[in-house]
């Protein structure tokens, strides 16, 4: 299996794409963020000391995994059923609740998906391939008011240029963005009502991604992950990356298998 290969080789190859605070490459060349830091700790417990990091666009994370270009993806990808058919997920380590970024002052007074739906002039942007699109659709927001973007760095421009009025973002990413002080003229819609789809508040669960056939690797990973989550180091990683305590708490209460089954 892949784990044996890694051990034989002496180092693991892991891929991320840039999406702070979940995963990113620091300018000095080390991977940081929730995904890489957890991955480093767990692999260490599995006896793998060294990791080769690859930064690559989101859309190539899984093809590269399948093609054997890397052994594991540490980009904190969301776990949901369609994806489980193609890859294996480690148990979730973080969760994200929805937030909405709007122009400072929230001129259209958008505080929920319902507000977006009910204002026929309101336009909203979502990342391509994301679950948020599904939620917006579930709320009945028409296609012509939804704009897809592929790079998170595009999103502030979309709002600031007036092409959209809001964009969906995960709470932790929004916190980080605003705290960095780099983007002026945006704010998180506050209060914001977490959307409800199929009678449940929507929360996304994210974890490491493995090849479909690497069940033993996943098992070993999950086992060590479970142990690591009980150490203060885990909480420190979450804290350092600005995740709210509720994020990890929710994650620990769920397994990948349950998410894959649609729970």
């Amino acid at each position: 299996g892949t784990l044996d290969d890694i051990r034989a080789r002496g180092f693991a190859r892991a891929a991320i794409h840039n999406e702070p605070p979940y995963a990113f490459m620091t300018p000095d060349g080390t991977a940081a963020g929730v995904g890489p830091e957890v991955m480093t700790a767990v692999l260490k417990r599995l006896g793998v000391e060294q990791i080769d990091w690859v930064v690559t666009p989101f859309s190539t994370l899984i093809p590269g995994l399948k093609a054997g270009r890397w052994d594991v993806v540490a980009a904190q990808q969301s776990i949901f059923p369609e994806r489980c058919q193609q890859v294996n997920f480690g148990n979730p380590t973080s969760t994200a609740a929805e937030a909405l970024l709007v122009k400072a002052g929230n001129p259209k007074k958008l505080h929920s998906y319902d507000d977006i739906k009910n204002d026929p002039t309101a336009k909203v942007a979502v990342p391509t391939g994301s679950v948020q699109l599904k939620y917006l659709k579930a709320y009945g927001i028409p296609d012509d008011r939804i704009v897809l973007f592929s790079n998170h760095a595009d999103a502030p421009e979309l709002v600031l240029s007036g092409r959209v009025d809001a964009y969906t973002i995960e709470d932790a990413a929004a916190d980080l963005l605003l705290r960095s002080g780099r983007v002026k003229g945006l704010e998180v819609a506050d209060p914001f009502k977490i959307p409800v789809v199929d009678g449940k508040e929507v929360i996304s669960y994210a974890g490491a991604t493995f090849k479909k056939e690497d069940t033993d690797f996943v098992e070993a990973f999950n086992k060590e992950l479970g142990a690591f989550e009980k150490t203060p180091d885990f909480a420190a990683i979450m804290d350092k990356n600005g995740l709210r305590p509720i994020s990890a708490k929710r994650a620990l209460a769920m397994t990948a298998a349950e998410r894959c089954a649609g729970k």
Partner: protein
Amino acid sequence: MASDLNVDTSSTLAFLLAVLPLLLKGLQVTVAAALLGFVVAAVAGLFFAVLRRSSSRLITWPLVAFLEFVRDTPLLIQLFFLYYVLPQYGIVLPAFVTGAVAIGLQYSAYTAEIYRAGIEAIAKGQWEASTALNMSRARIYGVVIIPQAIPRVVPALGNCLVGMLKETPILSTISVLEMLNLAVIIGDRTYQYTIPLTIAGILMLVVTSVFSYLIRLVELGLPKRGVPLR
């Protein structure tokens, strides 16, 4: 279109059948963007080519610099400026239009060269004969030179159209849902990339082949009488 992104992934065949109609819709966007861009390039290119031949350096110099810059820098980044920076000056064009215009402008740098070559290939004698008949410059261009240049440049313009078809995926950066972008989005949702991308590639091959064939037909259909073929 975005609403249809829940695709059946239960089997390869089902997946393929679910993906194909989606990509075909994306293909319409691709073709429409390329055609609109082509119109822009064909018109702007001719305009630039004629302007480029002006005897005033005040006109030609900035024009050459502009065309060179447009030609030598990536479309991706030009798109960004057109899409995000123009609104700051109150010009908010829809993404599709912005994209098509940007592609068209970039290609106008090429078509300008094509037209220029076409115009310069016309024997100097045509200019001299027109001048000897006391025709005005505008008239000479409009009645004598350009009508002769167009048939010569049709094949090269056709190649530009095919080139533009293949540039459209860049429009995904400004959220235009063209075919290749759709293929990637489907991949991002399902983590199955090979099938949608390969179908997109094949569809692209089919479309470019069809276009190339159509261009050849146009070429063959050009009047044979009255036009010196090279």
